[in-house]
């Protein structure tokens, strides 16, 4: 198939960006979206024009490095699929595809389709961990984790940190990302000691960078791991509790 691409090009963080139009010819169904862009780049290089900068790494939908707005949708039209796992059979001959970087104030453009997502790391740094220095923790099986808790923690921990939730949100909110990490850690017995402090610190750091959640629900639609907004409800509940809980009584259940 032959396609027309309108691609956002921007020299650097402070440069004015613009759309440029390219032809992608002889695109095969079996190509991934990023392989289609690889091909366009090869042609640009042959032409002596600078290739389009975009991020990608594992191309298996797990590292979270890639992410493009494709026709206004974060990661494109296929549900539960990261950009690298999207294949060209989802498009039709003659179509025009608009490709933009993640659009969010918290993710400034570095070049073309590449953005700076370090705000996500800042949220983890604020408390997205369980303190357990390397050493001699007790035997792994001494900590019983009920299967439903382990399974739900894993559902949340599946987040790949791509930032699609933020890009899809009209407010540029970071609630789905933050709540996924909080749910992972707060649901586990090992995470209880730091639960309220963690929640408070992560939520308040999130608010330094990201917009507010007004329950559009676009984030869960865009999430390549289909993480549900139920976790946002859990986070809101824990955040409220973090403000009223007497932490001296944490051992009292």
């Amino acid at each position, binding site marked *: 198939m032959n396609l027309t691409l309108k691609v956002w090009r921007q020299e*650097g963080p402070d440069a004015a960006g613009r759309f440029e139009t390219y032809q992608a010819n002889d695109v*095969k*169904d*079996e190509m*991934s979206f*990023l*392989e289609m862009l*690889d*091909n366009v*780049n*090869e042609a640009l*290089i*042959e032409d002596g024009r*600078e*290739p389009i*900068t975009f*991020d*990608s*790494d594992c*191309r*298996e939908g*797990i*590292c*979270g*490095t890639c992410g493009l707005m494709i026709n206004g949708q974060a990661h494109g039209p*296929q549900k539960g*699929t990261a950009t690298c*796992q*999207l*294949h060209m*059979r989802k498009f039709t001959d003659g179509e025009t595809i608009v490709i933009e970087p993640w659009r969010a104030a918290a993710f400034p453009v*570095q*070049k073309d389709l590449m953005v700076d*997502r*370090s705000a*996500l*790391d800042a949220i*983890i*740094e*604020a408390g*997205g*961990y369980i*303190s357990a*220095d*390397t050493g001699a*923790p*007790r035997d*792994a*099986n001494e900590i019983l*984790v*009920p*299967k439903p808790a382990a399974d739900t*923690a*894993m559902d949340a*921990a599946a987040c790949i*940190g791509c930032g699609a939730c933020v890009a899809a949100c009209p407010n540029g909110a970071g609630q789905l990302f933050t709540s996924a990490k909080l749910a*992972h*850690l707060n649901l586990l017995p*090992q*995470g209880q000691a730091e639960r309220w402090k963690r929640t408070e610190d992560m939520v308040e750091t999130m608010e330094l960078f990201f917009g507010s959640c007004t329950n559009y629900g676009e984030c869960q639609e865009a999430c390549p791991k289909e993480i549900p907004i139920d976790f946002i409800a859990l986070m809101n509940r824990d955040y409220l509790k973090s403000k009223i809980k007497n932490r001296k009584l944490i051992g009292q259940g």
Partner: protein
Amino acid sequence: MSTITLDSKVPSGPIEERWDNHRFTMKLVNPANKRKFTVLVVGTGLAGASAAATLAELGYQVKCFTFHDSPRRAHSIAAQGGINAAKNYKNDGDSIYRLFYDTVKGGDFRARESNVYRLAQVSVNIIDQCVAQGVPFAREYGGLLDNRSFGGAQVSRTFYARGQTGQQLLLGAYQALMQQVSLGRVELHTKTELLDVVTKDGVCVGIVTRDLVSGEVRSWSGHATLLATGGYGNAFYLSTNAMNCNVTAAWRAHKKGAAFANPCYTQIHPTCIPASDEFQSKLTLMSESLRNDGRIWVPKKHDDNRAPDQIPEDERDYYLERRYPSFGNLAPRDIASRAAKVVVDEGRGVGPLKNGVYLDFSDAIGRLGQNVVFERYGNLFDMYERITDEDPMKVPMRIYPASHYTMGGLWVDYNLMTNIPGLYALGEANFSDHGANRLGASALMQGLADGYFVVPYTIGDYLAGLLGQAPVSTDDPAFAQAEQGIRDEVKRWISVGGTKSPEHYHRELGKLVWEYCGMARERNGLEKALTEIPALREEFEKNVRVLGDPDGVNQSLEKVGRVADFFELGELMCRDALMREESCGGHFRVEHQTEEGEAQRDDENFSFVGAWEYTGKGNVPNLHREPLVFEFVKPTVRSYK
């Protein structure tokens, strides 16, 4: 003239006491002195992130570097199956000694016994550590940890977190690292790529990096430097490695004098989705666990163009079940891969390009029902369908082997130090634990063992001797010279002004390495490769085109240096494969096989680690041999018949 001596520093005595005794005899750095030492950690995968976090917890000043935008993106994240540990929670006869034995045997008797035993010992601590961090391993209903079995073992010792074990372990190490960043004990530099290792008077004193956003080239000085920069599987271009995986850090250390060991030991994983066309950028792994219920077959007839369901049972060749009746479809990775190559080379491959074999679930569906099969493998089936548009519940999967892991790497001693004092290599970047073939679920174990439990001890022994010495200043001429070298290199690539992209040359190089140094190697082919690769390299150096500005984001510039290093490495892989006149593990020399086509080892002449010393681009490198001694596990013929 050779300048390298390989002293493995392996302790003596009963194998189960070696690590304990060694830890006791090593020098310590007292807690108040640890903050006087700066350690540079390059790479933030399992080995790098766990080492950086642990060293910072101990009190060292850590500077940590990754070329990714976040430490969490490192390729450890893509590991699917699980992590081995000799916990014996299943009471099925597992022990540290058994894990040690399985790993030495699985590696086809080409690994160091002492290292492997230590790996098996610390495997149990890894699981404890990860659970304490909140890694959501699979659980049974009573809340205890679940285990599953994996290739090459007869016990269930693999811990897993769905099909995303690597992701969850990496996130655990990443979170521990970020905690140390928040405490100010780790200085984290993202989007920063190592381009040179700096030595002074034969000792590693630091590194030179390029900032991938601003283009700035700068020096970093430390008392010790840890390379945890992964493997070199992308030398084949098409592999299951991530797009940006490369050998540059290890290779540039090699060029500064670090020996590179066993480069021909590469693992080809049998169950990947076959390439569909020239445009393909990478291959995708389908977990080995599929072989528990899938049956592998090809048509008996050559060039059979019928749809799989039109081929009657008696015209199918279930070749693994036929050749290896006792292990059948669960034969180890190296053996299953070679068997697939044999049938495809015979012209019995399937799929539009005739480059795959069927992995068929219809028997399992008949026996267990659709629901059970989908429950076990549904997420893998979905992934397969996204890529191929075929539903494995209805049509057999097509699979073919692909480059997946590299057992070779920088030579290290028992302390994980390379032959350059102060320079360490961890995880897949070193060569030490897997011999000529790695067992499933052992890569994650080794990365975390090195980072959490080995290097934090062994580094003290080296640093204790440097007490009172400041790190060498980055104003030192050694740094200035290295920096200038990198600036010149950057300028040179931009000014070539050729016609083809770095990607183009990487793809062409990969074809040569795969053809001559892939699943089966032969003297003629390897000799050919040793003329064709340098010829292609010369063309690459004259005709590559790198556009854009060096001072800013420039992905072609990042790529071109990595491809240049792959060219030199590819040559070394072929040279090593040519030198090793035997077949062992992932290294199969066509000339050295039994009548039944099985690998034939030559313990008398090749029971050694082949470590190569760099002697300049295009020159023949020097080979150094570290003899392998087997005191506990007697080398035998691996039989899976």
